[in-house]
């Protein structure tokens, strides 16, 4: 990017953005380093329902498995799902939005109509059906989430493009003989990068929420640990209503889901603030 240096400086001056970034990087690192940090939790352990202790930092579950290990491996699949979903959504959504916003003729109408149709589809039932048909695998779940997230991304890209493409510097670029591809993917994209990036971070966050939901409903991959799977197992074992309550079992995955969503939101807001050069004068 042309303005990378100044962008970096301004970004690191924004406390909220840095906090979000640290959270995101920590979760990503945990996911990537999961095999080094803890062994993959499987089989049965000897100590059931252990309170958080030195041996089990987040306690153990009804099968005697270490919840800390489950959460770590869960962040690995959560991060993987988010990335896949974002890749699918942006590969379809961003070009669709740019093209429909810039070429306003019939091609724009067709794309916009398609987006409208996709936006009216009820997401959760559709996700459940597709996940059920495609079979339980976390890659399938990620693709389904991405396929249902692209319309909102396309809509946001299109709205921002519509506004920018009417500006005089786009006409100036045309009169300077810059080709449409460069105008679309450089001039316009630079100016809509803020809202688009913010939306991408939101897709990352909602992807994890959606995955947890699907896993909780039993449509996730039962052989892979994810935060949703942990919650489902806790629910199936009655951990949420039991007395005495093994609160550590359901609380830690919930906290991690929340943390993940909040961190990505802070990162998105931070990027949005930083990308506006007017905000970085002092």
């Amino acid at each position: 990017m042309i303005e990378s240096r100044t962008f970096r400086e301004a970004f690191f001056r924004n406390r909220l953005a840095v906090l979000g970034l640290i959270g995101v990087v920590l979760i990503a690192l945990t996911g990537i380093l999961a095999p080094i940090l803890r062994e993959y939790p499987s089989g049965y352990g000897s100590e059931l329902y252990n309170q958080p202790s030195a041996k089990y930092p987040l306690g153990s579950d009804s099968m005697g498995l270490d919840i800390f290990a489950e959460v770590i491996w869960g962040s690995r699949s959560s991060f993987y799902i988010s990335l896949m979903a974002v890749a699918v959504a942006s590969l379809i959504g961003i070009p669709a939005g740019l093209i429909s916003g810039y070429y306003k003729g019939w091609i724009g109408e067709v794309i916009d109509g398609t987006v409208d149709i996709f936006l009216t589809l009820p997401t959760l039932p559709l996700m459940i059906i597709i996940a059920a048909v495609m079979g339980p695998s976390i890659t399938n779940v990620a693709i389904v989430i991405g396929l249902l997230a692209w319309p909102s991304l396309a809509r946001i890209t299109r709205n921002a493009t519509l506004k920018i493409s009417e500006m005089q510097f786009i006409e100036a670029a045309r009169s300077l003989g810059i080709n449409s591809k460069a105008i679309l993917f450089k001039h316009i994209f630079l100016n809509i990068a803020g809202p688009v990036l913010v939306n991408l971070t939101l897709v990352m966050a909602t992807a994890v929420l959606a995955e947890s939901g699907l896993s909780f409903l039993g449509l996730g991959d039962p052989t892979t640990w994810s935060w949703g799977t942990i919650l489902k197992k806790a629910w199936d074992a009655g951990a949420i209503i039991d007395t005495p309550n093994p609160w550590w079992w359901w609380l830690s995955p919930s906290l991690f889901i929340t943390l993940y969503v909040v961190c990505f939101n802070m990162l998105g807001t931070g990027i949005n603030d930083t990308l506006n050069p007017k905000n970085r004068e002092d």
Partner: protein
Amino acid sequence: MKEAYLKVKNLTKHFPISNSLFRRTGFVHAVNQVSFELYQSETLGIVGESGSGKSTLGRVIMKLIQPTAGEVIYKGKNIFNEPEATIRRDMQMVFQDPYASLNPRMKVGDAIAEPLLAHHIVTGRKEAREKVCDLLHTVGLQPEMYNNFPHEFSGGQRQRISIARALGMAPKLLVCDEAASALDVSVQAQILNLFNNLKNGMDLTYLFISHDLAVVKYISSRILIMYLGEVMELADTEELFSKPLHPYTQALISAIPEPSTRRRKERILLEGDIPSSINLPEGCKFQSRCFKAMPECVYTHPPLSEVAPQHYVRCLLYPNQAGG
């Protein structure tokens, strides 16, 4: 006789208006049958009030908008049948709003370098940087400003950046669409002087579009007066100011404020606004506001006639003397 550099023939642009998907309710007649010739190294001023179609005319000549009808002949060819690249390097445009014509997310140096690289005028980043510094110097800015963003500049400086960007293509024709109008008067004078210096230094031909007759008088060698998309009068600047023939031109000239303490003898006051360009008047386009209107003006559309050498007027008061 001077050589015609660019010939505009019966150029017409109508914008369709539709208030639903399938129904077309009418047209905005932005430019109607405009013809003129642009000579090498001259500055042709195009004057008209808001809605007279002067900016549309500039954009059509720049091939930014496709015309409804008519031709622009450049180097013996109609530019609308030629590929884009043929005219892009020879013709450039400076826009009205210096705050909107630069990409706010691009460093000004990169903005100037971009077309240079796109057209292979320079090869490589280093050569581009040198060329950009040259261009910044040409328009009176410091080369150190390369890394600044547009919002760090004043309006006049931004307009200089836009001019530098256009000059990078080494154009022969520069279309200035209200290029000085958004600036305050002292900065306006600086920019106009810059235009004049560049013209002498680089042998440029200008098409200078403005609503301000005083500005146009200062910079132009010939002036074209537009009203409702039509040419009303076309003459050399001195001729036009000493012998304005069309009533509209007379009214415009009498409206130029004069820096004098004496009371002016007379001032022609036009009533009303420019009529809608959707439903055009049938006869003379100006008759609804003309202070010399005659009964036949309502239904007779006057032709553009050459009443003196190189002086064209579209008015029934002046029968065609040169052509017969």
